[in-house]
């Protein structure tokens, strides 16, 4: 699996301006950063502009990050700052905007939002790596459907659902364990 979190060379390659490393950065963080920005600016097009500008800056500057945590903090913090700038600039004085501006400037609230988005990012990316049928079962299971409901929805037997769940669990254990090892190894 080529999730950048797992591979520290990736940071080096990114600093060198390597195209694959950059694409991988985009693949893994673009969506979550857009959702993160969209939550604040309430417009996906504007959110995309903000995130793409960040990526443009990253591709120009060749900043060097010594850990994935530093990189992630940089990504979310930069998006936050761009959102604040945009919201202030638009001078929309409705209640929502002023509420958002407050939550953005309170550190704790900002990091809670980051935590939430990161959780969904990892959840989606890890399940996305599963074989198609297993993925379908797991997605439904994560959304709270019972085994029998999943079987009915997908038109497969209850036993098959259970088997896919087992396969999925094994996959995820391996995938997430690697991730955990690397993360603890680099003392994050």
């Amino acid at each position, binding site marked *: 699996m080529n999730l950048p979190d797992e591979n520290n060379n990736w940071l080096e390659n990114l600093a060198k301006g390597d195209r694959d490393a950059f694409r991988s950065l985009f*693949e893994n963080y673009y969506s979550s950063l857009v*959702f993160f920005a969209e939550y604040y600016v309430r417009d996906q097009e504007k959110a995309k502009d903000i995130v793409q500008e960040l990526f*443009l800056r990253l591709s120009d500057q060749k900043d060097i990050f010594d850990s994935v945590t530093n990189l992630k903090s940089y990504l979310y913090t930069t998006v936050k700052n761009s959102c604040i700038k945009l919201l202030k600039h638009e001078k929309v004085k409705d209640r929502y905007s002023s509420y958002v501006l407050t939550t953005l400037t309170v550190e704790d609230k900002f990091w*809670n939002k980051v935590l*939430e988005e990161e959780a*969904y990012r990892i959840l989606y990316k890890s399940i996305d790596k599963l074989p198609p049928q297993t993925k379908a079962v797991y997605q439904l299971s994560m*959304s709270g459907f019972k085994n029998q409901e999943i079987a009915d929805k997908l038109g497969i037997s209850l036993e098959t659902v259970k088997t896919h769940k087992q396969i999925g669990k094994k996959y*995820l254990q391996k995938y997430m364990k690697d991730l955990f090892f690397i993360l603890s190894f680099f003392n994050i």
Partner: protein
Amino acid sequence: MESIFKIAEIVVKRKQGIITPGEQAILEDWLNESPEHRELFEQICDKVRVEKRMTDYSQMDWEKDYQQFIIKYKRKTVLHPYRRLLKYAAMFILPMAIAASFLFNHFTKEIPVIPPGISQATLILADGKTIELKQDSTYVINKSDGSILTNDNGLLSYNKTSDLTSTKKISYNQIFVPRNGEYRLTLEDGTRIWINSETNIQYPVSFNGGKRTVRLQGEAYFEVAHNPDKPFIVELDNAKIKVLGTSFNIKAYKEDLSLTTTLAEGKVSFSSKSGEENLVLNPGEQFELDKTSGEVTKRDVDVSIYTSWKEGRFAFRNLRVEDIFKTLSRWYDVEVVYETDAIKEKKFTGDLKRYDDFNKILEIMESSELIKFDIRDNKVIIK
């Protein structure tokens, strides 16, 4: 406090039912830290929310946005306030522009300008630190080992160090010149080196032992300072060149099938790594080592052809098109594609200016009516 990124991951593992006892303990601690954490945790795990967010993610076409981004990035335009307006304008203008370019294509051929290489290199110091060297940057570095480096106008020089040498360990520096680049280097003993594109040279900061040894990968022209007591040795991947005081050119690119050494002045001896050959070269002579067979040939040549690059010229004498473009692609940093294998074998003779744009070079070559070109995204298609 555990980093929030680690907590995010543990929350996911909990949701997937693969949390380990150690992680469960970290999670409990975090949840007990504040009611806000517990609230956040429940919110993240909420089934309806998870379903909605997973749908969000699956509907986001990041690949399409990436493609668009790359196009934008290539043009390096940030048109923030007008971007949206431009999008609509483009809807009308673009089809017209395409139609127009289609029509005009018959009359004019629009080719991007590809400029020649410039003085640029990366210096790698003994401790692994790197310094980007540019033509217009001037600076002096005083190193703790007593050496002094001066970078000025595309030339990096090492000055003779003070007397605190002989006992010290030899420390090596390295200079890497990328494609599209060239650089000049003066070593501590006064030896001058012209470094061509895509070349790496490793050398000691000061020459303390009984020998002066440098390592080369790529192409460089050497003017070795005369010192009969300390032979100068150039180590290559497949061979070694021993020098007393002389000027010569070495072309030893990793991907090339052979390496050559061409002597302008003095005397060098050449020994390949595989065989035990130890051949002596006189001025005007060239060695060629075939890397696959290990065979060495010695021939008389016009030296100026092989050293022309350092005088700002390309001198091609009845040379295969493929070999010509190997040289050109390093200097102009372009990729070359051949429409047929037969084209590679055609031969060309001519003198060209190294500091001309690539387009000018192609124009001249095209006028020979041997070959035709197309340029697309830094790729040259030879027909």
